[in-house]
């Protein structure tokens, strides 16, 4: 059996595996879409392999690589069946991500990417796998796979971290990338301590850096570890951009998830790597962004004193009670404000709605429902003969969950023992599901009238 014959045999194996994969139930989207896409890719590849010259080693290697990719993708899709992840959340995530990830290349195959979700092991497995490889031959509609840590599958409050990953997804769209570079990144690196690789290196080697930085430098005295090269500098700025992206898409819940997860993996908050700047510098930037968006005073004028106090506690815990330290504070208020405003404009232009703070009545309703151990959503629980349910953004449900997570049992309507974080998450997940039903009912009602 020569290579060409083996590859054609493998095409059949992939086809059979794909058929087996469809025995599962898939939620969060239409399995027909990815089945059709897979079949088209496989058919295209087979068409290319059949006439290949057996001496064309380069083409054969490329086809082998493409088949491996398809095989891996089928395996990942197999793990995306219902039950493996929080599908109410993933549906909301898709609604948020798809508009910003839509291609515009003028062809019939373009359009919405197909988004699939699966769970993987490890706290660090939050990611979106993007089909953005320049040396991939065989993509009709792009397939994005969203990965959740298996153990955190129902912890919807932490899933707000995906706002950052959507930023990376947006970066893969060339027209968005051009705008992100010129309108978001350029203002950030135009001034300050990270304007160049040499200034970034000087910043890492600053003798006045906080103690944790000194300790890390002592552990790794080789100058290589504090030498920032161009690739690293580019990666760092992309991470800063994606953090802002997370914030403007998911709101304060992103800040809470960001801090909780990143400080778990790096409790010092000061470690850096080839792809990420120290958490402390990211938090400092987000503090300035919060200030620009008015989150530093949000809740101060609420009528409900308990809610106002709890929002204040949230602010202290996850945004920061005071101005960042001089080493961490890399960007001016004006730089961050320009970047945030540009991001908001980019999202709106792509028909993706940026996060807007909930009004007091909405937040109070959600927190109260949690206190009563009721899934928080826009359900009218007044007992009225004609309930007046309302639309509530799922991101507000997450925010309500975070407020409840730090407010202990301070509310009078709180029933029973203090809510555990896992309970809050389950209630919020159910709340998102209930809200979907409310929104669907509302949509059908409007359709019936029109």
């Amino acid at each position, binding site marked *: 059996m020569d290579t060409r014959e083996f590859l054609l045999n493998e095409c059949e194996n992939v086809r059979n595996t794909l058929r087996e994969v469809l025995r599962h139930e898939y939620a969060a989207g239409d399995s027909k879409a990815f089945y059709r896409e897979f079949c088209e890719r496989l058919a295209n590849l087979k068409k290319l392999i059949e006439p290949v010259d057996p001496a064309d080693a380069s083409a054969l290697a490329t086809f082998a690589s493409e088949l491996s990719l398809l095989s891996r993708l089928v395996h990942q899709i197999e793990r995306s069946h219902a039950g493996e992840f929080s599908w109410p959340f993933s549906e909301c995530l898709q609604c948020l991500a798809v508009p910003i990830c839509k291609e515009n290349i003028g062809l019939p195959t373009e359009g919405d990417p197909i988004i699939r979700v699966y769970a993987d092991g490890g*706290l660090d497995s939050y990611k979106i796998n993007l089909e953005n490889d320049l040396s991939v031959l065989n993509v009709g509609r792009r397939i994005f796979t969203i990965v959740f840590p298996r153990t955190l599958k129902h912890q919807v409050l932490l899933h707000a971290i995906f706002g950052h990953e959507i930023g990376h997804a947006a970066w893969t769209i060339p027209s968005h990338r051009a705008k992100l570079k010129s309108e978001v990144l350029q203002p950030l690196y135009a001034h300050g301590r990270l304007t160049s690789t040499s200034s970034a290196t000087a910043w890492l080697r600053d003798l006045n850096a906080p103690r944790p930085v000194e300790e890390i430098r002592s552990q790794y005295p080789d100058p290589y570890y504090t030498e920032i090269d161009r690739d690293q500098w580019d990666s760092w700025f992309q991470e800063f951009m994606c953090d802002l992206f997370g914030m403007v898409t998911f709101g304060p819940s992103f800040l809470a998830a960001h801090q909780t997860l990143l400080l778990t993996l790096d409790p010092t908050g000061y470690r850096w790597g080839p792809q990420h700047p120290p958490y402390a510098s990211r938090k400092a930037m987000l503090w300035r962004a919060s200030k620009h968006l008015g989150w530093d005073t949000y809740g101060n004028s609420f009528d409900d004193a308990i809610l106002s106090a709890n929002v204040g506690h949230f602010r202290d815990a996850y945004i920061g009670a005071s101005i960042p330290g001089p080493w961490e504070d890399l960007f001016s208020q004006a730089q961050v404000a320009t970047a945030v405003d540009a991001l908001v404009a980019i999202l709106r232009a792509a028909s993706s709605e940026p996060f807007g703070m909930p009004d007091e009545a909405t937040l109070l309703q959600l927190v109260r429902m949690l206190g009563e151990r009721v899934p928080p959503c826009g359900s009218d629980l007044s007992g009225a003969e004609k309930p007046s349910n309302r639309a509530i953004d799922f991101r507000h449900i997450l925010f309500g969950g975070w407020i409840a997570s730090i407010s202990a049992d301070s509310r009078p309507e709180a029933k029973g023992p203090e809510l555990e974080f896992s309970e809050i998450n389950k209630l919020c997940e159910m709340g998102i599901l209930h809200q979907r039903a409310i929104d669907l009912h509302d949509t059908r009602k409007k359709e019936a009238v029109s």
Partner: protein
Amino acid sequence: MALISMYERDNSRTVYRILADQAVKCFDNPSIGAEEKIPLANLARLLERYRYDAFSDHVALGILEALSAKNSALGADSRTAVRHMEGVISALEAAHARVYGGISREDLVRTLQDLLARIASSSGIDEPETRQKLENARRFFVAFAEGLKSA
């Protein structure tokens, strides 16, 4: 231990050579365009990157993946390899200059994407005006493929 290990191979020139050859076949016989949507879409994507000079496909790690010990700079350098697209970009630029002279990247990409879309949907390809445009586009992709072979 993996069955085989080797240094990562950059397939970009081979990929775009194959795609360019497929496009030329479509221009020679537009009736097959509807069955060749995938190659045409991938060429349209390449052109979109050319329009915005967006060729770095550095693949970012997940937000927490970047923090895990095995990916920390304070350990082995685990940065994902960046593809080297210089050969593909040079071939594009050469084909652009040879066939379309001084028109801007923006105009070039709009023109080519429009024609690829027409081929893919088999619409409006018989009009005399379109035929000349199709011939120019064909010459572009022939030049592009030749540039990739010689790179």
